[in-house]
C-alpha cells in the first residue's frame, strides 16, 4: 500500500501528457504492492519510445506502448484475482471487435455516421449553448437589467437615455441598484502616429455592477463621477498594444484630444462590455452634463435590488416615465422609459436564428439515429441464422443478448471517439467562420454534456436495434432459423421498420434541403439587390480632425477646436489633394456611411404642412461633400447638387432623395420647396430649400427598404456640431481601391499630421456585413442539409444492398429464366425509388410547415417557393437512384448457376 502510495504519485508526475496519464490510469489495475515498480517500468518505456523514435513514427510507437501497458495491466489483474465477470467481459469485447472487423463496410458506415452526426451536432450545439444558454460572465447575471427608451411608433427598438433622465432614474428608482451608464465616444491619442481610440464614458458604478477587479491600479471612485475629473482606465488590450504592458503607466497623464487625463488603472483582461469592446473608459465626460433631455446618448445598466423582481422595476420605471412626460412634455412626451433583462437584450435578437439551428440539430440527430438503426437492422437480420445456430448449439439467450449489447457498446465507443474529433473540428470551424451577431463567441468551449448526450442517444439506438435478431428468433424454434436458407427470415415487422426509417431519413433531409435552398435563394437575392450605391472600387476611410466647439462650450473643454472655417479649409485641401492622385475618378465625403447603422435620424416636416410634435416623420440626415454622389455612385435625378453656394452662412439648402420626394411631395415638383429639420428634438430647428433630388439608398442594408434621406452640405453652418465628430472620405478608384490607401493617408497627413485615420477599407466591406449573417446561416444549414442527405443516401444504399443480398437467389433465377440485366436493375431501383417517393413527399409536406420558422430570414423568396421544392424533389430522387445504382449493378452480376446452387 505504502509503495503504491507515494511512488505512484511521483511516477505520475514524471511523465506528463496523455500517454503517461493513461498508463497511470491502467496502473490502478495492478496490485498495490507491485504498482510502483510496474509504473516505473512502463513510464520508462514511454519515455524511451518518445526519445528514440523519429517524429513520424513517434505517435504510433507511443500508442503501441500504451496499448501494451494496458494489456499487461489487465493480464496482471486477471491472473492475480480471477474474477469470472471481468474476464468474461473482456472476452466478450474481443469477440465483438472481431465480429465487427469481419464486417468492415458496416462498421465503417456506422462509425462514420455516428462520428459525423455526433460531432457536427455537438459542435453546433456548443456554439448555440455558449451564445444563448450559458450565463453571462458577470456575477448573478440574471439580475442584470438594461434600461432604455421606446419611441412611439418604433416598436421594440430600444434607444438610449438622456443624461437628465438617467439622473432622475438613479435618484428615484429603488428596485434597481448600482445604476450605471455608458456613453461611447472617440478620442485621438498621439502615439507614434495619431490613433483614434474607442472610448466609453462611464459612471463609477459601471465597474462595480459587472463585478470586475482592476488588473493594475484601481477603477473610478464615486467622487470621480463629478464633472471634470478627467481620469481614465485603460483596457488590457490597449495597455498591451500601446503601452507595452508597462505598469508604470498608472498615474501618468495622457493627452487625449488635447486634454490631460490621468490613468488610474488597467482593467482586467477579461472585462468585456456586454455589447462592445472599447479601448479605454473615461470618467463622466463633461459633454454628458451639458447634454439635455432631448439628447439621448447613454446606455443604462443596473442590477435588480435583492427583493425586487423585473416586474417591480418595470412598474416603478413606468411611473417615473409618466411623471417625466408630464413635467417635460416637449422632450419626453414621445417616448417611454423601459427596463428589460440583459440576457434578453443580448440574445433576444438572435433567438429566431438559434431556434432554426436547434431544429436543424434535432433533425440531424434524428437522421443519425435512424441511419444507425437501419444499418444495424440490416446487419442483424443477416445474422438471425447465426443466432439460430448458436441457440441450437446451446447458447443461452442472455449470452447472445450480452454479445449483441457488447457489439453495440464497442460501436458506440468508436463512433463517440470519431464524434469527439469531429466536434472539436466543427466547433473551430463555426467559430472561425465568425458567426456575425453571435455574442460572446470568443468564450466558446466544446460542451461535453452535449457530446455525451448525443453519444448516449445514438449509442442507445444502435444497441436497441442491435437486439432485433434476438426478437426474431425468440418466437421461432431454432430449427426454423436453420431451415430458412437463402432468404433467412426477415420478419415483416423488421422490414417495415427499416423502410420506415429510410422514409423518415429522406423526409428529414428533404426538409433541411428545402430550408437550405430557400436560404440560398435569399442570399442570391440579397447580393443582387440594388442598394442605390455602387460600392465596388470605392475606398473609404475616416478622419477625425479636432472637433468644432460644442454649441454651449464649457470653458477650456476643447483645446484645439477648429472653427468651421478651419475645418472647411482642411476638408477642401484633403479632397483636392486626393482628387489629384492618379487612379481617382471621384472623391467626396459623408459624416456617416450608409449601411453602418450609424446614420442619424431627425424629425422633418414640410414647411407648408406643419405637423404636431411627435407626428413628424423621422428621416435620415447626412452631411456630404458634393463629390459624395459621384464617388458612391448615387444617381442625379433633378435640380442641382449641393455646391459652394450651399456652404458657410449662405441660404440653407438640401438635396433630398427620390424616396423622400415620393413620400413628402407625391405629385409635386419638390425643387424650390422648403422643409424643416428639427435638430435637438425640436429645441433648435432650421428651414431648408430643396435644391435637387438624387437616387434613393437602402440605408439599413440590402434587405431594408429604400429610406427617405436628406443631404446637407458639410460646409454649411446650420448643421449641429456633433455631426462633425468624424467624417468618412469616399474615393472612387479605377482598379483596386486598397492600393490607393497609402497615398490617400499621406495626402491627409501632409495637410495635418495630427489627424487620425481609421476604418480604412473598401466600401464593399460595409455592405458585406449585412450579407455575412445570411451567408453564415446559409452555409451552416446548407452544410447540415448536405450532411443529412449524405446520411440518407448511405441509408438507402444500405437497404437496397441488403435487399439485393437477400434476393440474390431469386434474382439469379430470374436471369436464368431469361430476364435481361436491365430488368434486374429496374427491379432493384424500383425498391429504392418507392421509398424515395414516400420520403420526399412526406418531407416536402413537413418542410412546408417547418419553413415558417425561416420566414424572417427569407428575402425576396416565398417560403413556399415552388422552384426550391421542385429542385429538392428532383435532387433527392436522383440521389436515391445513384445510391441504389451500385447494389443494383451488383445484382446483375449474380451468376444464375451459383444462384440455383444456393451460393449467391
Amino acid at each position, binding site marked *: 500500500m505504502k509503495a503504491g502510495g507515494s511512488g505512484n504519485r511521483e511516477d505520475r508526475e514524471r511523465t506528463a501528457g496523455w500517454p503517461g496519464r493513461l498508463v497511470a490510469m491502467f496502473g490502478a489495475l495492478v496490485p498495490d504492492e507491485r504498482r510502483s515498480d510496474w509504473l*516505473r*517500468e512502463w*513510464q*520508462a*518505456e514511454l*519515455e*524511451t519510445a518518445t*526519445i*528514440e523514435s523519429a517524429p513520424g513514427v513517434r505517435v504510433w510507437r507511443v500508442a*503501441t*506502448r500504451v*496499448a*501494451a*501497458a*494496458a*494489456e*499487461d495491466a489487465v*493480464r*496482471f489483474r486477471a*491472473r492475480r484475482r480471477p474474477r469470472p465477470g471481468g474476464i468474461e467481459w473482456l472476452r466478450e469485447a474481443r469477440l465483438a471487435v472481431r465480429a465487427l472487423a469481419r464486417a468492415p463496410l458496416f462498421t465503417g458506415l456506422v462509425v462514420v455516421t455516428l462520428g459525423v452526426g455526433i460531432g457536427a451536432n455537438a459542435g453546433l450545439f456548443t456554439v448555440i449553448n455558449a451564445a444563448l444558454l450559458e450565463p453571462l460572465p458577470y456575477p448573478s447575471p440574471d439580475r442584470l437589467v438594461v434600461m432604455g427608451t421606446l419611441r412611439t411608433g418604433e416598436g421594440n427598438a430600444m434607444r438610449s437615455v438622456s443624461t437628465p433622465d438617467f439622473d432622475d432614474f438613479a435618484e428615484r428608482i429603488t428596485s434597481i441598484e448600482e445604476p450605471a451608464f455608458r456613453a461611447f465616444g472617440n478620442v485621438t491619442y498621439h502615439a507614434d502616429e495619431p490613433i483614434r481610440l474607442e472610448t466609453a464614458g462611464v459612471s463609477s458604478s459601471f465597474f462595480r455592477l459587472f463585478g470586475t477587479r482592476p488588473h493594475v491600479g484601481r477603477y473610478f471612485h464615486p467622487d470621480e463621477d463629478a464633472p471634470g475629473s478627467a481620469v481614465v482606465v485603460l483596457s488590457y488590450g490597449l495597455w498591451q498594444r500601446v503601452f507595452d504592458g508597462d505598469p508604470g503607466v498608472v498615474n501618468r497623464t495622457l493627452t487625449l484630444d488635447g486634454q490631460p487625463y490621468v490613468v488610474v488603472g488597467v482593467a482586467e483582461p477579461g472585462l468585456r462590455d456586454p455589447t462592445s469592446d472599447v479601448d479605454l473608459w473615461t470618467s463622466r465626460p463633461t459633454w454628458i452634463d451639458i447634454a439635455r433631455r432631448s439628447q439621448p446618448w447613454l446606455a443604462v445598466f443596473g442590477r435588480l435590488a435583492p427583493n425586487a423582481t423585473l416586474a417591480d422595476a418595470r412598474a416603478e420605471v413606468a411611473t417615473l416615465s409618466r411623471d417625466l412626460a408630464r413635467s417635460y412634455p416637449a422632450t419626453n412626451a414621445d417616448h417611454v422609459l423601459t427596463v428589460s433583462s440583459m440576457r434578453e437584450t443580448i440574445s433576444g435578437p438572435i433567438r429566431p436564428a438559434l431556434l432554426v439551428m436547434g431544429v436543424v440539430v434535432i433533425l440531424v440527430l434524428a437522421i443519425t439515429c435512424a441511419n444507425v438503426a437501419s444499418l444495424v437492422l440490416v446487419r442483424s437480420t443477416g445474422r438471425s441464422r447465426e443466432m439460430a445456430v448458436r441457440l441450437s448449439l446451446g447458447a443461452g439467450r442472455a449470452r447472445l443478448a450480452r454479445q449483441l449489447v457488447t457489439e453495440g457498446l464497442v460501436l458506440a465507443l468508436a463512433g463517440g471517439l470519431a464524434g469527439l474529433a469531429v466536434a472539436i473540428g466543427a466547433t473551430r470551424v463555426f467559430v472561425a467562420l465568425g458567426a456575425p451577431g453571435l455574442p460572446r463567441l470568443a468564450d466558446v468551449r466544446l460542451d461535453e454534456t452535449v457530446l455525451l448526450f448525443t453519444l448516449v442517444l445514438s449509442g442507445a439506438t444502435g444497441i436497441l436495434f442491435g437486439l432485433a435478431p434476438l426478437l426474431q428468433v425468440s418466437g421461432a424454434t431454432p430449427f426454423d432459423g436453420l431451415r430458412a436458407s437463402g432468404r433467412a427470415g426477415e420478419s415483416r415487422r423488421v422490414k417495415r421498420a427499416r423502410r420506415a426509417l429510410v422514409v423518415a431519413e429522406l423526409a428529414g433531409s428533404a426538409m433541411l434541403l428545402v430550408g437550405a435552398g430557400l436560404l440560398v435563394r435569399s442570399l442570391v437575392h440579397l447580393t443582387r439587390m440594388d442598394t442605390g450605391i455602387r460600392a465596388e472600387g470605392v475606398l473609404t476611410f475616416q478622419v477625425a480632425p479636432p472637433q468644432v466647439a460644442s454649441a454651449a462650450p464649457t470653458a477650456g473643454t476643447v483645446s484645439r477646436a477648429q472653427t468651421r472655417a478651419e475645418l472647411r479649409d482642411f476638408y477642401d485641401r484633403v479632397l483636392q489633394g486626393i482628387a489629384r492622385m492618379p487612379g481617382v475618378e471621384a472623391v467626396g465625403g459623408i459624416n456617416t456611411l450608409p449601411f453602418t447603422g450609424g446614420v442619424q435620424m431627425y424629425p422633418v416636416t414640410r414647411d407648408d404642412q406643419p405637423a404636431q410634435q411627435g407626428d413628424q416623420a423621422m428621416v435620415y440626415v447626412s452631411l456630404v461633400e458634393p463629390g459624395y454622389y459621384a464617388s458612391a455612385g448615387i444617381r442625379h435625378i433633378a435640380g442641382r447638387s449641393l455646391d459652394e453656394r450651399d456652404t458657410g452662412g449662405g441660404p440653407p439648402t438640401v438635396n433630398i432623395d427620390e424616396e423622400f420626394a415620393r413620400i413628402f411631395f407625391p405629385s409635386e415638383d419638390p425643387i424650390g420647396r422648403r422643409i424643416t429639420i428639427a435638430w435637438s428634438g425640436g429645441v433648435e430647428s432650421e428651414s431648408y430649400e430643396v435644391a435637387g433630388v438624387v437616387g434613393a439608398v437602402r440605408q439599413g442594408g440590402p434587405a431594408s427598404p429604400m429610406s427617405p434621406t436628406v443631404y446637407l452640405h458639410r460646409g454649411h453652418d446650420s448643421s449641429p456640431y456633433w455631426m462633425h465628430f468624424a467624417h468618412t472620405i469616399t474615393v472612387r478608384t479605377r482598379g483596386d481601391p486598397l492600393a490607393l490607401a497609402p497615398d490617400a493617408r499621406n495626402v491627409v497627413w501632409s495637410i495635418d499630421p495630427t489627424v487620425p485615420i481609421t476604418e480604412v477599407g473598401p466600401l464593399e466591406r460595409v455592405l458585406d456585413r449585412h450579407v455575412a449573417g445570411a451567408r453564415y446561416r446559409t452555409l451552416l444549414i446548407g452544410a447540415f442539409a448536405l450532411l443529412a442527405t449524405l446520411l440518407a443516401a448511405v441509408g438507402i444504399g444500405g437497404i437496397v444492398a441488403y435487399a439485393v443480398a437477400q434476393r440474390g437467389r431469386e434474382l439469379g433465377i430470374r436471369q436464368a429464366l431469361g430476364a435481361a440485366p436491365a430488368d434486374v436493375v429496374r427491379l432493384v431501383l424500383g425498391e429504392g425509388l418507392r421509398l424515395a417517393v414516400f420520403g420526399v413527399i412526406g418531407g416536402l409536406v413537413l418542410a412546408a410547415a417547418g419553413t415558417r420558422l425561416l420566414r424572417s430570414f427569407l428575402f425576396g423568396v416565398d417560403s413556399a417557393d415552388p422552384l426550391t421544392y421542385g429542385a429538392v424533389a428532383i435532387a433527392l430522387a436522383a440521389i436515391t437512384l445513384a445510391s441504389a445504382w451500385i447494389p443494383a449493378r451488383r445484382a446483375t452480376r449474380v451468376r444464375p448457376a451459383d444462384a440455383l446452387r444456393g451460393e449467391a
Partner: protein
Amino acid sequence: MEAKNVSPIRMTYATARVLQALDEGVRYGFDIAEVAGLRGGTVYPILRRLEEEGLARSSWERPEIGRREGRPPRKYYQLRAASQPLVREARDRFPFPLRGVSDLNPERAR
C-alpha cells in the same frame, strides 16, 4: 517428457520465444518483443511469471547509465540457472530462429 515438466509454466509459443530471447542475451522488454515477434503486452506478463517462479530475475540499471545515454533507466531481465531445462524444451518444441538479434544495438543485446 511431459512428466518431466513439473514447472507451473505452460510452454506456449510466446513463452518459448521469450525464453529463447532471454537465453540469447536479450535483456530488455521491448527488445525481447521485437526479436521474438511478439507484442509488448504479451511479453511482460510472461517475464513477470518467469520471475515469480524463480526462473528469471530483474534489475534496474543504474540511473547514471541512462542519464549518460539521455534516456530513463531500464529494467533488465536475466534467466536464472534453474530455467535451463525449460529453455531446452522451448528450443525443442519451437525450433525457429529469433529475428535480427544482431541488428540490435550491440550494447543492448549484450
